């Protein structure tokens, strides 16, 4: 840690409130690197633009994370052969993939890209480790990552017909001789227009017919192919989209159909509302939803343009304090602000692996939502009494490294402390509120920290060495456990 570390000051400089807000909503945790990037960029709008241009941000640590896992990039046929031989399990593939996803969120410098990858992975949701989809799951993730800040239309084209999706929602069994409606229905309901758009059962049947012909050799080689002889031929019509669909190779019709859905005003509204629910509040105004939907349509589904409209709307800046972190966000944020980062995998005590059970213990496990609709985007879902108790315990655990994490980078206690002494208990509370929450300590936080020690705020420490480690752990956990510590 360099001598110019932020924490060296007894009163570390905090970002202007608007900067802190944007960074808090669009990163997995405002750590020292994010603070430095924001300070260097001359305004949060510039920082946001640089983050949108994600391919220009060097990110070697994140790019290396797949290499921690021996099998994560296995070809589908190889993955299944390892299951058949008993060498490993689909569950293990899923667990590796979820662990990789969590680790990458902590270490990546492309934080806006990570956040949006998470958002789209939750909209076009496929769990990890599910039998019919897991051999292609990492490949599917690459599709989401490629388009996470690109065009929704192009992401939809690749995601809907991806072999992982075909397996998950049974499209590989959807043929002209036996229609399987699963993917055709969820495409309308979850991925694009949504139920209020008012499609009927005939629309669903046509939707499924358009998607016939895509094959995956599930429980075999998992080879993906297109079989024109399985494709339904004949006129199809879905919500104003119609096609003669006369060619046994229906893939051109599929692309036209997906483009039509992506550009549909109902899709624009649905995606805009979901974005606003993630980034603004559980109950966004119709005005901001309309502004975001308008930008989405005007830009031909360009995600960057859509996000710009969101952050520039006055409702966004006014929404401070409206969102609570999910358990997964809590784990990632706590690691980042405490200066704890995974750096590899050697066993079950590797921090990357521990993060999975840490968030599970609070109440959410990466890619373990059981249904195709993804985790709820509403904060109210995660604001239960039971969740808070578990988060409070987790913050003590992390502040004290009580899990004995391995394969991890941690800032030493000396490097977390200010260099100017003496300081009072109230000063230490303020120092850590600035470092961990990006804001000065409120009087309630100072009182809370003092009360935890059953001591006055004016209790003075002559030097860093006079602060016992248990006391330091307690200060940090008390700050993270304040209501403000749970807000995103």
């Amino acid at each position, binding site marked *: 840690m360099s001598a110019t570390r932020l924490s060296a000051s007894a009163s570390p400089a905090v970002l202007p409130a608007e900067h802190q807000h944007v960074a808090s909503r669009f990163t997995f945790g405002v750590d020292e690197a994010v603070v430095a990037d924001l300070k260097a960029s001359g305004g949060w709008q510039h920082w946001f633009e640089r983050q949108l241009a994600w391919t220009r941000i060097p990110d070697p640590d994140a790019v290396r994370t797949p290499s921690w896992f021996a099998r994560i990039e296995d070809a589908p046929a190889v993955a299944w052969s390892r299951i058949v031989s008993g060498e490993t399990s689909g569950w293990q593939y899923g667990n590796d993939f979820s662990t990789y996803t969590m680790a990458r969120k902590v270490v990546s410098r492309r934080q806006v890209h990570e956040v949006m990858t998470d958002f789209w992975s939750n909209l076009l949701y496929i769990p990890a480790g599910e039998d019919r989809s897991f051999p292609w799951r990492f490949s599917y993730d690459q599709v989401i990552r490629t388009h996470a800040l690109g065009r929704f239309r192009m992401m939809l084209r690749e995601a809907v017909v991806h072999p992982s999706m075909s397996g998950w929602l049974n499209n590989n*069994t*959807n043929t002209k001789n036996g229609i*399987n*409606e699963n993917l055709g229905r969820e495409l309308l309901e979850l991925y694009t227009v949504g139920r209020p758009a008012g499609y009927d059962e005939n629309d669903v049947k046509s939707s499924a017919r358009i998607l016939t012909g895509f094959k995956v050799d599930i429980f075999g080689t998992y080879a993906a192919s297109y079989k024109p002889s399985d494709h339904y031929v004949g006129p199809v019509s879905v919500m104003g989209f119609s096609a003669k669909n006369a060619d046994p190779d229906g893939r051109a019709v599929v692309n036209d159909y997906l483009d039509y859905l992506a550009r549909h005003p109902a899709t624009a509204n649905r995606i805009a509302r979901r974005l606003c629910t993630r980034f603004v509040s559980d109950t966004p105004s119709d005005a901001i939803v309309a502004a975001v939907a308008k930008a989405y349509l005007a830009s031909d589904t360009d995600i960057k343009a859509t996000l710009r409209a969101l952050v520039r709307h006055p409702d966004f800046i006014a929404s401070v304090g409206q969102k609570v972190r999910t358990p997964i966000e809590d784990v990632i944020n706590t690691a980042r602000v405490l200066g704890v980062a995974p750096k590899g995998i050697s066993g079950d005590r590797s921090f990357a692996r521990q993060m999975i059970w840490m968030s599970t213990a609070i109440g959410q496990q990466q890619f373990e939502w059981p249904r195709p609709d993804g985790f709820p985007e509403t904060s109210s879902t995660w604001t239960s*009494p*039971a969740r808070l108790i578990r988060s409070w315990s987790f913050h003590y655990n992390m502040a004290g490294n009580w899990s004995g994490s391995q394969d991890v980078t941690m800032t030493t206690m000396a490097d977390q402390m200010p260099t100017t002494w003496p300081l009072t208990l109230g000063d230490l509370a303020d120092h850590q509120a600035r470092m961990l929450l990006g804001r000065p300590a409120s009087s309630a936080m100072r009182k809370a920290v003092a009360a935890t020690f059953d001591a006055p705020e004016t209790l003075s420490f002559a030097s860093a060495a006079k602060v016992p480690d248990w006391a330091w752990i307690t200060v940090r956990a008390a700050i993270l456990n304040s*209501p403000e510590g749970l*807000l995103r």
Partner: protein
Amino acid sequence: MIDDACGCDDYGVSRRSILKAAGLAALAGVTTSMIGDVLTSTVYGAGEGNILVVLSLRGGADGLSLIVPHAEKAYYAARPTTSIAASKLQAADATFGLHPAFAPLVPLWKQGKMAGLHAIGLPSPNRSHFEAMELIEDADPGSSARIGWLNRMISGLASTPDVFDGVQIGSTVTPTSLVGPAASLSTSGFNDLRLPFSDNPTGQARIASILKNQYAAHPGPLGAAGTNAIALASRAGEIDDAVTAGSVSSVAYPKSPLGKALATTAGLIRARVGVKAVALDSGGWDHHVDLGWRIDSGIADLAKSLAAFFADLGPDGDRVTVVTLSEFGRRLTENGARGVDHGYGNAVFALGAGVAGGQYYSRWPTLGSGSQIDGDLAVTTDYRAVLMEILQARFPSLDLSTVFPGVKAAPLGFMR
């Protein structure tokens, strides 16, 4: 020393078991209001009341496999690879029979403690998983307020509902049925609901006091949740002890999520904290592919888990009624993958206290082509009528017009 060692002032009733566990002497010095609350709850005997367990079969269970209409030629014609021969069914009568995997529940059926209901569902078809679940669990289509029917039920049974009145077991996400103004709890267990420093009562009490003050001063749902969390944590330890103590008999639950959730539910009932409604999920009923073996293993888990649950409850089973619900049935005709797509009318089971079991109840619409709704079994009984019949029998003080506003339906007669 904090001023309220319990921190329970938001939850005024049913601390009976805690009182029992702690012993009266341990309460000396605690504020009088708490003593008053405890005495009140003892008078009302909150821990000995009736309990409704709502088991949601998530994904849309195939009612035509759960209760097979074996007298219908149309069933066998529409399902060349997935129908079940009449000779294999359990507890069959002239029209219906249970799927063979229900064997572990046949003793309960024969004792008259389990009834099968058919052609049940929403008043109009909805083949979306998520929308159908929302409709079923909100159960008040005329209102835009997001309040679930179980929340309305617990609100109707107490002027100040307790956090343990309505509990979701097995998931940390609150189901729509429990969402609403009455506090409720969603958890997998109780061992992880204690505050930090459980080995240091002084430190733990200090942290409870600090967090309570901080969250009480914070506006909105987060502040309220924090305040409730302190009250919850103060009681979680005793409940966990009751849950982990296990039952007197040696009952073997399946090691499935449902088996674990029902074992925890039995412990919660034994703990006598006054729970009135428990919501449980059983996932994996969305059988678009390979209906045959998949539903066989799903029903086997369901039947073994419920059989273990009632064996575990013993005499407490006389207070507990279980009802199964699923968002919709499946299409009559199987699809191209030996599965069945989303349909409409469905089967429901009622088990336990008050059930006039050992038989089937249905205004059976038949599967004739003129009787189907868009290729599906029709609905002849609103699912809310089924729930009302149970509530009427087991919670007679409840004003049903507030739980299911505007519903008028003739009972099927499956409750005593």
